[in-house]
Structures are given as structure tokens and as C-alpha cells.
């Protein structure tokens, strides 16, 4: 079994790299879109709403095919890695938007008013009063999204990215080592996801006990 380890390690690195990049872009998209929804910015909020519907109601595999085979057709050259990141960001952006938006909206309106009555402008109110509270409220949903998105990277193999899933399928196809391949696949996903899951629960606990929720 050891002879396959290097292959899996390489694949794991790819999975993590694309996963992290996709998640970072998801966070950026999520922040922007959740602010648009929170501040009810006209017209743009409609576009965001449509984006969220499309993103949440189509499978990542379909989104990836669209980007991977569609973009070159309209003359935009692309490669599998960029497609993977773009697909994951397109999907993750909407999930992150929902997580951040519900966090922002869960902050009591009276908090906003007391900030305003202390003479804070919109930016200061957001920066010092709303955002810190919203972030803490969002953490459970945020961590769930991170894990969800890392798991979703398993469909990258469909656009011939040599991620963990691709490696396992490849080995099964070449050497019929089904049991070993699948075993290693599970182990490597666990190695990636378990620590994140643990960090997530620790964070949640910290937030719950650190001066919150009267």
C-alpha cells in the first residue's frame, strides 16, 4: 500500500490548495454579497439574489462543466485548476453569503441604534459594533461551509484534476486495488477534514463562552 502514498500526498496537496483558494474567494464573494443584501443596495441586490438561486440550486459538477467546457467555446481560454477554483468559489460564495447575512441580521437592531446615538457613522457602526457580533454568530455556519466545500472538491476529478478522488479512481482502474485505494481515500479526507472540524468546535465553544448571549 505504501507505494501509493506519494500519489495520495500529491493529490491531497492539490485538493487542499484548490480547496483553500476556492474558500478564500468564497469568503470574499460572501462578504461583498452579504453587505449588498444587508444594506439593501438597489438593483445589485436583485443580481445577488439571482446568483444565489443559481449557485445553490445547481450541482457543482454542472457548474464545473459549464465553466470548463463553456468558457473556451466563447473564446475564454482556461485550465482545469482555474476552473476548479472558479467553480468552488461560485458555489461557496452563495453559501458564505447566507452564513454572513444571517449573522449580520441576527445582531439586534437596538445595537445599531445605540451605536448611532453615540455618534458613530455607518462605517464605524459596522466595524466596531455589528461586524464583531455578526462574525461570532456566523462561525458555526461558516465552519460547516468550509467542510462542505472541501468535500465538494471531490468532483474536481470530473474535469481531470488529479485530486484525491481522481487518484483513487485511477488506481482502481489501473491495478484493481479497490480496497486499498478506497481505504487511503477515506484516510486522506479524514486527515484533511478532522482537524478543521475540531478547530470549528473549539471556535464555537470559545465564542459561546466569551462574553456573549445574555
Amino acid at each position, binding site marked *: 500500500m505504501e507505494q501509493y502514498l506519494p500519489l495520495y500526498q500529491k493529490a491531497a496537496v492539490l485538493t487542499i490548495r484548490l480547496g483553500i483558494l476556492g474558500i478564500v474567494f468564497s469568503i470574499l464573494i460572501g462578504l461583498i454579497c452579504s453587505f449588498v443584501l444587508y444594506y439593501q443596495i438597489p438593483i445589485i441586490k436583485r443580481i445577488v439574489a439571482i446568483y444565489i438561486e443559481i449557485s445553490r440550486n445547481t450541482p457543482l459538477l454542472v457548474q464545473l462543466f459549464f465553466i470548463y467546457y463553456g468558457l473556451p467555446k466563447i473564446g475564454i481560454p482556461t485550465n482545469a485548476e482555474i476552473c476548479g477554483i472558479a467553480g468552488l468559489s461560485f458555489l461557496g460564495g452563495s453559501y458564505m453569503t447566507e452564513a454572513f447575512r444571517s449573522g449580520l441580521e441576527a445582531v439586534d437592531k437596538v445595537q445599531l441604534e*445605540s*451605536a448611532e446615538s453615540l455618534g458613530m457613522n455607518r462605517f464605524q457602526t459596522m466595524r466596531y459594533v455589528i461586524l464583531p457580533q455578526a462574525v461570532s454568530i456566523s462561525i458555526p455556519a461558516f465552519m460547516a461551509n468550509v467542510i462542505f466545500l472541501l468535500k465538494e472538491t471531490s468532483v474536481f476529478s470530473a474535469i481531470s484534476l488529479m485530486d484525491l478522488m481522481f487518484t483513487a479512481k485511477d488506481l482502481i482502474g489501473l491495478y484493481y486495488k479497490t480496497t486499498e485505494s478506497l481505504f487511503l481515500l477515506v484516510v486522506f479526507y479524514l486527515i484533511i477534514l478532522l482537524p478543521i472540524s475540531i478547530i470549528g468546535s473549539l471556535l464555537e465553544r470559545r465564542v459561546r463562552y466569551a462574553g456573549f448571549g445574555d
Partner: protein
Amino acid sequence: MAEELLTIDHLTKQYGENVILNDVSLTVHKGEVVVVVGSSGCGKSTLLRCINALESIQGGEICLQGEKIEQEGKNITALRQKIGMVFQCYELFPHLTVLNNILLAPVKVQKRREEEVKAEAFELLKRVGLEDKADSYPRQLSGGQKQRIAIVRALCMHPDILLFDEVTAALDPEMVREVLDVILELAEQGRTMIIVTHEMQFAKAVADRIIFIDDGKIIENSKPEQFFSHPETERAKQFLNMFEYKRK
């Protein structure tokens, strides 16, 4: 007479068709303590919220030292810094310690030196008997303590006028006193205040003037001795009777 600090001129506030404040005019002089009373829903909170531009107004104008208070006005954040407000429900920031609740606006909004504000904050905390709570979080405090902190937070902004909206209404009876004593002391210091309260004994003690609002209109505006012993209107008499207990 002292200088006019706050002038409310023919103020009208509506929610849709619903008229909440109807042609309200009121002048508050420097150092004056005005207590606003009236039955629930008559528009007391709305009046205070209009003064702080938390509500849009549909008619008339409100001026602080001659400067017009407008919700979308350019100088609204500067004006709000001169108006300290304490709400009925505890509105401290739950993610910050007591000290940081107090420091936030003076340091970040008024850009004052943190050391200076901190010294002042501790001075004020000592005055309200809570200097040992500086590092606590709001959820670790009782309702009465939270309200005293909220008052300190407002004071640290050096406001020209303080607005109190039923700050003891949500408190257990034994905590009402500790909060009202703080407000009494502020009156002693000559602070300008508008106080909405249902504590009539306190109103009598603290007020220079009583405003009685009924159905969105000011229908009495008089000295406390006058108001409590000889109310002019039938509505005010009925209102005051609610606070009397007699066996039939």
C-alpha cells in the same frame, strides 16, 4: 433665563397615515431637567428618538444650539455626540468589556486620547460604584448595573444634553433606586436632561418642569408642584389617579 439649548418647533411625526406626534413644541434651557410623562403609547419614546434623529420627522424642526437636527444631515454624527441617550432595554455592546463599551466612542469617534478617557471612565465608574466591573462583560452584570454603565458611557462623550427613556422600566424594584440616584446626582450637577419615566415620586423630586403628553400632543407643561397637586386637564387628573391607591 439660561440659554436655550434645545428647541422643538411644531414637530410632527407620522408612521404612514398614523400621526404619533402632533404639532409638538418645546424649549429646553441649559441646566434644565424636563420630565416627560404620559400613558403608554402616547409618543414619549418617539419624541426622544426624534430628538436623536433615530426617526425621520414629517413636519417642524428640532434644533440643538441653533443647529438643525436632520436624519440625513451632514453634521448628524457630530450632533448626536452632543446628545447622550440611554434606552429602556440594556443596549451595551455584548462583545466588549464594560471599559471598552465606555471607551469605544470617545476614542474611535471623538479621537480623544485613550489614557485621558480611561482616567475619566474610572472616575465615573467610581461615582456610580462600579469601578470593580471595568473588565466584566455586560452579560455578567445585573440590569441595574448595566443601566448605570450605559449612563457612564453616555457621560463620557461629554454631551450637552442627556435623554433617558424609561431607564428603570425593565428593572427589578430593588435596582430602580440605584439607577435613579445616579440621575438625581446628575441633576444636582446642573446637567440638562429630558427624562421619560413612570416613577412619579422620582419625577417630582428631579424635575424642573413636567411635560404631559396625551395622544401625541403636549397638553400640560408646568412646574412639578403645579402638575402634581393641581393638574389642569381632565386627562392628566385621570393619569395621576392611576398612581393613587385607595380602598373604596
